[in-house]
């Protein structure tokens, strides 16, 4: 139909929908007018009024059919039918309030779990970048043997930007980092999150500043020349109360003056999922921030600190861009063999980046989606079973309608309308539960993301999630409504009219119900196994302990790069700091370490070759996790040295290089020999020799679930200087009592140096290792409980219904001499067979989930038999009980009563 045309007639159609009675009246009036004239004409021709009336009606060829024809002309009967069906459905649902309530609650639980999970998965996986045309933005990564998602160096960025032809622009950004921010010179700096970005960042992304301007490309040409700053929207609101006069204002970042030139729009919180930068600085100002001081950010091709993204030219395909990038990487490898040997490059879409295999968000998303869908499935089968039972009690009504000429399709539509209304109500409840889950996530936010930087959980019930919930409700209405609708309209008319609850012979009808029971039992067994495995795996890991002392420890982080210290000043600062805190009252011992176990920043890696070790043909080096610590570390953390010695003050920069490795490392490379006195060479065969002087006990380094842990190496700070260090203080009393004295000491050393992430270590450990995983466990656990409750209710309902349907038959059997034990066996036997099949399937699914868990969380390798020994029998008991109760009732029926039953 043409648009113009549609517009013209839409008015009529809307009128026929909204003013239905009025339109009906007019229809009557119009025909009445015609009839009256026709009758008058007849009378005038000499007919009697009765004859005239008869003739007039005859001429119409059936008045009511004509009216129907005209109604059809309006092309809205699908809607009016739907409204009629809805009214009917609402009336019949209100007649069964407890059933309706149960179904709605069940669906609300299933849909709510799923929509809450979807809000999480949407934020982690699907939500597009907050920029115009987000699908054109791709991510470029450098690929090395051990890391297929590596960053690029500044030089590499410039080359790619200059040579690649597939893009409208290539942008670069460093990770968000802690920046010492003072609103005016002289104020004590506070820690804020800043991000270095290329000059074309906002232009290429298509982000229009809300105030002022974005960076100009020429502001990113000369290192250190343009100290300009673009504020993030949230920071502008909080720090400057949305004051527009902030443009042109000078603020101090890490002790250097910057001029505010713009504010990013509210719609652009940043490109990252969790971190939303407080402000953006041009890449050319990198020196002011915490780039690697041992390398030259602007010159060294192996100083890889930049994430690259690009906007594809319209018309350029991913394939072209990939080929081009691969070629560029080949050129790098040829021109700079030293730093680019066996290093390639790859291009990924947003979806590919977020679903990469090693991504923990993706793994968790998969687990939660699988579990949430399982809950939804149980809810659906439950409701389908109930509707099926209900539809059977309506056999007579349906048979009557069919007999009166209602089309089967029309009846199916009526029944589906009913389940649609149920699903919509359930959907509303589900949205409420979803909101609850999202709110709950937000209350846990500070636990999951414990940081001084502006990070937040981006989970929300937005339009996308609401739409998904709506779609889900529609889907569930079909899932749980279609089968009952199809079955009950297949009724045999003769039998259907004879009895209120006819049992149509044939296996087909029972088959559907059996599938429901099996699906329910198996899915809830899987859910239960999942939650049980989680809890047990977690407790097991906690009981193992970590291998070091966690109490009475205060931690705080320093980064002297924030106040522009050079390496010598940095060393001097840490030396003075250590001397001062050592003498402070309440401090038992003190240590410096690059990272703490269970910390949020990952450990560094180190590449090495053990002397005299036969290297495999395809490798040049091995790699190990690395921590750089001072001589107080092992004692302060309570990590025992099992052989040799720890570091000493005599291991200075001038002394021979030494390292301590963990037991696993020692066993790995020198099995059966003494590791002490062995040498490794850093970065390859010709590298610096380092002597192994001690073996430390293997502890858990990154998570409670570390079972096998990893190779680990410690280097002394004096020989491997690192600017950003964590100070650990072991206290005699409450570690937090030391915070104020420590602040005073640091202020005396340098009033501008901020203390980052100051807290008791116990606090960090509990958050990272206990409360964090706890959230996941609570969620999975509640899903398991929900699944189990639903399955019990569903099974009980089905067996009870089955019994009530066979009351007559049971009565007959008993009248003919069957004992009540026979009846019990009859009723329960079939239920138990179904439960058995369900359990077998559920076990298979449980094993699959355990493998999934092992690959993500525990890495225990084996099968947790105890878990199954608990879950399977308890499931069996519960399901047997659900089948036994109604069966027992059946076995106690008095035959006389049962035979009268109708």
């Amino acid at each position, binding site marked *: 139909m043409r648009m*113009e*045309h549609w517009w*013209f*007639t839409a008015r*009529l*159609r809307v009128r026929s929908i909204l003013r239905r009675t009025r339109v009906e009246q*007019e229809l009557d*009036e*119009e*025909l009445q*007018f*015609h009839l009256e*004239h*026709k009758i008058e004409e007849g009378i005038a021709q000499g007919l009697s009024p009765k004859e005239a009336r008869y003739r007039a009606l005859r*001429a*119409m*060829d*059936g008045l009511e059919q*004509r009216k129907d*024809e*005209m109604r059809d*002309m*309006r*092309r809205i009967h699908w809607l009016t039918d739907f409204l009629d069906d809805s009214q009917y459905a609402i009336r019949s649902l209100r007649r069964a309030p407890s059933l309706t309530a149960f179904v709605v609650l069940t669906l609300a639980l299933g849909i709510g779990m799923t929509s809450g999970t979807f809000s999480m998965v949407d934020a982690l996986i699907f939500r597009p970048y907050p920029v115009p045309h987000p699908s054109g933005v791709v991510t470029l990564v450098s690929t090395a043997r051990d890391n297929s998602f590596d960053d690029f160096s500044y030089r590499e960025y410039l080359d790619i930007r200059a040579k690649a032809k597939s893009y409208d622009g290539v942008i670069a950004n460093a990770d968000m980092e802690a920046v010492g921010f003072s609103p005016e010179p002289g104020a004590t700096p506070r820690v804020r999150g800043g991000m270095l970005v290329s000059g074309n960042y906002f232009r290429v992304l298509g982000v229009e500043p809300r105030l002022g301007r974005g960076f100009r490309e020429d502001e990113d040409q000369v290192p250190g020349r343009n100290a300009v700053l673009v504020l993030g929207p949230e920071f502008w609101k909080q720090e400057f109360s949305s004051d527009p006069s902030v443009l042109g204002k000078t603020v101090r970042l890490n002790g250097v003056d910057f001029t505010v030139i713009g504010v990013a729009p509210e719609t652009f919180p940043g490109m990252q999922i969790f971190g939303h930068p407080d402000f953006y600085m041009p890449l050319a100002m990198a020196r002011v921030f915490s780039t690697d001081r041992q390398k030259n950010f602007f010159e060294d091709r192996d100083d890889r600190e930049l994430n690259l993204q690009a906007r594809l030219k319209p018309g350029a395909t991913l394939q072209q861009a990939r080929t081009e990038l691969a070629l560029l990487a080949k050129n790098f490898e040829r021109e700079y063999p030293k730093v680019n040997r066996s290093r390639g490059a790859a291009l990924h879409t947003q979806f590919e980046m977020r679903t990469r295999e090693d991504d923990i968000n993706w793994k968790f998303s998969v687990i939660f989606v699988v579990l949430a869908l399982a809950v939804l499935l149980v809810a659906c089968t439950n409701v389908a079973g109930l509707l099926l039972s209900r539809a059977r009690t309506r056999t007579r009504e349906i048979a009557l309608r069919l007999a009166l000429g209602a089309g089967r399709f029309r009846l199916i539509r009526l029944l589906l309308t009913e389940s649609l209304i149920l699903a919509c109500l359930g959907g509303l409840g589900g949205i409420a539960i979803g909101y609850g889950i999202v709110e709950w996530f937000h209350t846990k936010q500070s636990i999951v993301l414990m940081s001084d930087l502006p990070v937040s959980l981006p989970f929300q019930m937005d339009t996308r999630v609401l739409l998904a919930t709506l779609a889900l409700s529609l889907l569930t209405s079909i899932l749980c409504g279609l089968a009952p609708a199809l079955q009950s309209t297949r009724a045999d008319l003769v039998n259907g009219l004879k009895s209120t609850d006819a049992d149509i012979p044939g296996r087909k009808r029972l088959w559907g119900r059996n599938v429901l029971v099996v699906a329910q039992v198996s899915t809830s067994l899987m859910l239960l196994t999942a939650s049980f495995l989680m809890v047990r795996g977690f407790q097991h890991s906690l009981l193992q302990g970590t291998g070091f002392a966690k109490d009475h420890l205060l931690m705080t982080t320093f980064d002297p790069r924030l106040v522009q210290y050079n390496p010598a000043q940095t060393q001097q600062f840490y030396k003075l700091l250590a001397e001062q805190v050592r003498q402070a009252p309440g401090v038992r011992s003190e240590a410096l370490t690059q990272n703490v176990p269970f910390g949020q920043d990952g450990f560094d890696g180190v590449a090495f070759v053990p002397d005299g070790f036969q290297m495999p043909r395809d490798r040049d080096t091995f790699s190990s996790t690395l921590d750089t610590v001072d001589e107080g570390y092992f004692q302060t953390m309570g990590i025992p040295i099992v052989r040799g010695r720890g570091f000493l003050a005599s291991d200075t920069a001038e002394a021979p290089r030494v390292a301590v490795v963990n037991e696993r490392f020692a066993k790995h490379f020198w099995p059966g020999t003494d590791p002490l006195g062995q040498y490794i060479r850093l970065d390859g065969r010709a590298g610096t020799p380092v002597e192994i002087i001690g073996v430390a006990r293997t502890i858990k380094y990154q998570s409670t679930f570390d079972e096998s842990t990893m190779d680990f190496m410690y280097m002394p700070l004096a020989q491997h200087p690192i600017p950003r260090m964590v100070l650990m203080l072991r206290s005699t009393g409450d570690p937090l009592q030391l915070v104020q004295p420590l602040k005073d000491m640091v202020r005396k050393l340098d009033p501008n140096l901020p203390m980052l992430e100051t807290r008791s270590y116990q606090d960090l450990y509990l958050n990272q290792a206990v409360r964090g995983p706890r959230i996941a466990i609570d969620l999975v656990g509640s899903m398991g409980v929900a699944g189990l409750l639903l399955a019990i209710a569903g099974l009980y309902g089905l067996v009870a219904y089955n019994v009530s349907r066979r009351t007559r038959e049971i009565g007959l059997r008993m009248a003919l001499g069957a004992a009540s034990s026979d009846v019990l066996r009859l009723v329960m036997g079939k239920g138990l067979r179904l439960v058995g099949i369900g359990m077998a399937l559920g076990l298979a699914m449980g094993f699959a989930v355990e493998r999934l868990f092992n690959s993500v969380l525990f890495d225990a390798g084996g099968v947790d038999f105890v878990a199954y020994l608990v879950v399977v029998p308890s499931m069996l008991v519960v399901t047997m009980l659900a089948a036994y109760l109604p069966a027992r009732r059946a076995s106690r029926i008095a035959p006389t009563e049962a035979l009268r039953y109708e």
Partner: protein
Amino acid sequence: MSKPNDLVQGTLDLLLLKILALQPMNGWSISLRLKSISGDVLQVSEGSLYPALHKLEQEGWITAEWKQTENNRRAKFYSLTRLGQKQLESEAANWQRLSSAISRVIQLSEA
């Protein structure tokens, strides 16, 4: 079966559009007019008249309005719309082409 099936498909639409092009009318007057113009050749059942009118209305070719008749009764008066005018022209032209083609064929066979 009602009579319009004897009419060439779509002819009733054309007739109604043409009649309404002359002046707005109510259903009863239309039925009288149809009978008086075409005599007994084109018999249109009164029953199929109203569905046809409603269809034309839904297509947007005619529009309806409640007005008083000469003897002061309320009746639904239909009139042609701009869209209907266009439709009438194209259908009339179509009909002309068709009927002249058919008569040419008939004359051919007699020659």
